[in-house]
């Protein structure tokens, strides 16, 4: 399982944004928008996605001064993103289990679109996995996403989630097993 490598934004830009430079913050926004959007989409679904993404970046800008430029920016940004997602899940408990995606059929999920343009490039599997992930609890979903999709280390996840490494391992184990079992049971055509 190769860890995904992502470029990090330049420190100069972070320092400028810390000083309240909105233009510099725009660069950060452009740089991370898709990743944040993706995380939020996975965590809370489509319904509150835009609002949550907006809140993430507002919180980030407001607390930029707290960021230590010696550390990884994305890990810090991810922490805020997760906090916002969990806040949304708490405030709107129903969206974790009854997101609009679940009520749609898989063909629709696979070609989820905004306006007349395709939102996801991927095939049906993406929709199915998305569907399956929604059955996981928020913590397991978050751990699964961070480890398998974003490539964070267990130690980083434990910091972001504020829990022990053993807890992260247990949740990751449960999530991987559950997603795979659901996939094989309900969509056997994906069985190798």
């Amino acid at each position, binding site marked *: 399982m190769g860890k995904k490598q992502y470029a990090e934004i330049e420190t100069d830009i972070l320092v400028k944004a810390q000083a309240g430079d*909105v233009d510099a913050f*725009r660069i950060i*926004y452009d740089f991370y928008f*898709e990743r944040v959007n993706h995380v939020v989409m996975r965590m809370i679904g489509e319904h509150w996605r835009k609002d949550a993404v907006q809140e993430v*970046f507002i919180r980030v800008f*407001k607390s930029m001064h707290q960021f230590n430029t010696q550390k990884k920016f994305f890990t810090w940004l991810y922490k805020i993103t997760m906090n916002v997602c969990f806040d949304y899940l708490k405030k709107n408990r129903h969206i974790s289990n009854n997101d609009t995606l679940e009520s749609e059929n898989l063909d629709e999920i696979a070609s989820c679109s905004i306006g007349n343009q395709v939102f996801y*490039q991927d095939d049906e599997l993406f929709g199915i996995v998305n569907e399956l992930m929604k059955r996981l609890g928020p913590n397991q979903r978050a751990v699964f996403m961070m480890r*398998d999709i974003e490539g964070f280390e267990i130690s980083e996840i434990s910091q972001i989630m504020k829990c022990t490494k053993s807890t992260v391992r247990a949740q990751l*184990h449960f999530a991987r097993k559950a997603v795979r079992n659901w996939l094989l049971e309900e969509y056997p055509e994906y069985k190798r």
Partner: protein
Amino acid sequence: MDCNHIKDKLYLYISNDLPKRENKAVQQHLRICETCRLELNDIRDTITEIAALDRPVVLDDEKEQVWNNMLPELNLVKSPVKRQYNPFLMNRKRVPVYGWLAVAMLLVIIAIVSEQGREGNDTALQIPALTENDVVHAENEVTVVNFQTSDPKIRIVWFFDSDFSLDAEALKTLK
């Protein structure tokens, strides 16, 4: 460990997330068990496939829309310049509430004590300027200085040897 036990461990083994000891046990088992090796490959492929899914492609106009929505709020944020990251400020330990209370109490006590001290000074006995008239040359070779202080209840009497010079200058220094 039997195969079922090992298979359960494979979900973390695929990404080296097992504790060292368990990792070694699984490794040893995989060397001799073909079934578990197949299971390992299957789990790894499934999880890798899920992880490799493409990211959503977001339209630029949506990105602009979200930015424009939050821009007014960003502009409202007070310039964080003054609160910019400062290793000295950021690393300082926060004084808990009871710490501040203790400091406040201390300040109050100091204020009260100093106030009392000031009052004490205000009521200190005022000794009038002594003159030679206050000096009484008594018998037995003793000189007496006898005078009334600012407090009517207190009268001071000093006794000196008669050979002690009590001229006007010396009387001034008696204070």
